């Protein structure tokens, strides 16, 4: 009995966003179907994986995470290079030192670090602020200026602080991460506000504020699925690619932090699995860029993506 393959006729597609420049430029998005359903439509670009670095020595990292970056943890540029050696598609620089409680580094200071890192690598750079709206509003435009022309991805812009960040991105030729708290309508609204400032729609990446595995992952899973179906049905304000800030969520979980126990098994294996499983589940919901911390997570996620990019035999 020949089974007729069931295909949805989607009317539209995800937006395609280009990041970085030169031979290592990366494109994400552009799909005309749900994740990895090659029998139904095109997936011109595979999801990509970034490794996350910090402008300050990380505190409280388990040994098996900090040891893979031994010798470079205090030097963001060297750390970024190490990430490229490990095979990162992009590097995400987290400006944690700009946080008012963690050094309150000045915008100029932060911009200088970002410029150093950008000069050290040829893959696209993501720069993440400290998460305090007012501070990011001051820091990121400065960073945008220092990185002008490098086509980086800067964020996160929220409902509260998007104006100055988006203005900085427009002036410096960067893409922006639009971040909203686990709510598809708020995400859409922020995208509208940003495009009203005349940033092109293909210069926006959505951060849906994911939860880690076991910590609200299902909310992000469904919001991302709804964004993808929305995009495929023609909603231009949900059609932007999605970034998954996995590392910060996965590594703060109890499951990643608890040492070896008879009940939960080996910590190293468990923590990496936590990071990998959070990323891959959300990639299967429709995520495009996963930001992770452990190079082994990077390797496993990329291997899985490579398998999934092979067409189905129908």
């Amino acid at each position, binding site marked *: 009995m020949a*089974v007729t393959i069931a295909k949805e006729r989607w009317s539209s597609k995800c937006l395609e966003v280009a990041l970085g420049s030169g031979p290592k430029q990366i494109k994400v998005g552009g799909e005309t179907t749900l994740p990895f*359903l090659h029998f139904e439509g095109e997936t011109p670009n595979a999801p990509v994986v970034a490794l996350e670095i910090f402008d300050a020595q990380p505190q409280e990292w388990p040994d098996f995470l900090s040891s893979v970056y031994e010798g470079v943890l205090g030097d963001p540029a060297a750390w970024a290079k190490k990430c490229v050696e490990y095979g990162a598609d992009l590097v995400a620089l987290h400006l944690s030192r700009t946080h008012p409680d963690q050094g309150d580094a000045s915008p100029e200071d932060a911009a200088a670090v970002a410029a150093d890192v950008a000069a050290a690598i040829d893959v696209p750079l993501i720069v993440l602020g400290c998460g305090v709206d007012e501070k990011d509003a001051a820091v990121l435009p400065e960073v945008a200026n220092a990185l002008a022309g490098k086509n980086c991805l800067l964020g996160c812009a929220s409902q509260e602080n998007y104006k100055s960040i988006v203005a900085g991105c427009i002036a410096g030729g960067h893409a922006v991460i639009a971040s909203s708290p686990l709510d598809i309508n708020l995400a859409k609204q922020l995208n509208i506000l940003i495009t009203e400032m005349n940033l092109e729609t293909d210069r926006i990446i959505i951060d849906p504020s994911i939860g880690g595995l076991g910590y609200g*992952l299902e909310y992000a899973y469904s919001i991302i*699925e709804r964004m993808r179906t929305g995009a495929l049905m023609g909603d231009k304000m949900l059609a932007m690619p999605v970034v998954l800030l996995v590392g910060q969520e996965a590594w703060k979980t109890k499951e990643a932090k608890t040492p070896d126990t008879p009940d939960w098994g080996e910590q190293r294996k468990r923590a990496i699995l936590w990071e990998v499983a959070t990323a891959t589940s959300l990639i299967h919901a429709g995520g495009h860029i996963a930001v992770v911390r452990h190079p082994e997570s990077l390797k496993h996620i990329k291997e899985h993506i490579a398998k999934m990019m092979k067409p189905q035999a129908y």
Partner: protein
Amino acid sequence: MALTGLEIYKLLPRTNCKECGQPTCLAFAMQLAAGKASLEKCPYVTEETKEALGAASAPPIALVKVGVGEGVLEVGNETVLFRHDKRFEHPTGIAIAVPDNLGPEELGARVEAINGLNFDRVGQMHSVDLVALENVSGDVAAFAKAAKLVGEKTSLALILISEDPKAMEEALKETAGAKPLLYAATSENYEKMAALAKQHDTALAVKGQNLDTLADLVAKVTAAGVKQLVLDTGAREANQVLGDQTQLRRQALKRFRPFGYPSITFAKSPDPVARVVEAGVHIAKYAGIVVLDTVDRAEILPLVTLRLNIYTDPQKPIAVEPKVYEIGAATGNSPLYVTTNFSLSYFCVAGDVEASRVPGYILTVDTDGTSVLTAWAAGKFTPEKIAAALSESGAADKVAHRKVIIPGGVAVLSGKLQELSGWEVLVGPRESAGIPAFLKQFWS
């Protein structure tokens, strides 16, 4: 196809007598269409209507039971492609493989390890569901002997994996009472396998080489009278499994009858991370049962957690009771935090208050189980509601001071709240992870 509310309405008496508990026949029809009411509630439906509706309302995917007693596993009965469309009904059964060529001691130890794969999460136990005994020895007697031993050692449901009807027959002599799932009927053996499934009234897995051969085989097996089926498309590569599982679900929802059964998949990569990732994809993308070859607790924990997440009912926000919670040995001088009664918000704050090592109180405001920012945006987390919760919850009797800490994300509420409640409002961190640092700075 399932009938729409309007189509069902046309089949009802349309007298609006209200006996079904709905104000009108139309309202009842809408409830039926949404699967929220059952037809028996209306005493006036005709036989023809029952038939028309019965056929249309039979679940697109059959409910299949494996095992008996407390170990019984139910899979199937799914109605949607996306969990946000309604919900996923029956969590994927996790099966752990056991080869039949182990010595009795090793075999016993393996089954013990599987029995122990239980994990406590927020007071609930989550476990694997099945033991899958594989006839890797190819030997009939060895398979039967191992089946007997496994059956004695576990109360979990069983899968008997052998394509040899003779081996299956012998193993069933030892385990038929446990109602195992027989895996599998193939184009070579289906007549005998179907006969065994009928004789012992067990569920039968049907294994094709692809979707076409699977549909053929299902037709033959159902013609032989077996009704409890589990489908295997034969795919083992991650990309093909995703495609096939998607096809099975889509076709079933379109009422293509041969695919109206739950599925079984295998994630048996020798690489631990790859098998967990792939089993995770199977759980999210429609597998009824997934078989893995590991008893490593570090591998199973993420999978039972993912299953819990994906199979949570998205229409039911998980809420905690709105009240004052005590974390640690809190006293009259302990800090008082306010958050919403969204369970995740509460658990995050509770975890970080614990981490701060300073005992405290958490007042959860009833926001219908929505998170802080969502509730705030929806007008459910307002100064008025927080002030009311402060006075009605008895918080004032627990603490001697009059200071309350609100989430940093809703700092804008502080002025109004202070005015309404008379409490001093401290703006806490945006993320609960910042609580320990916040306390050091602002609480003495």
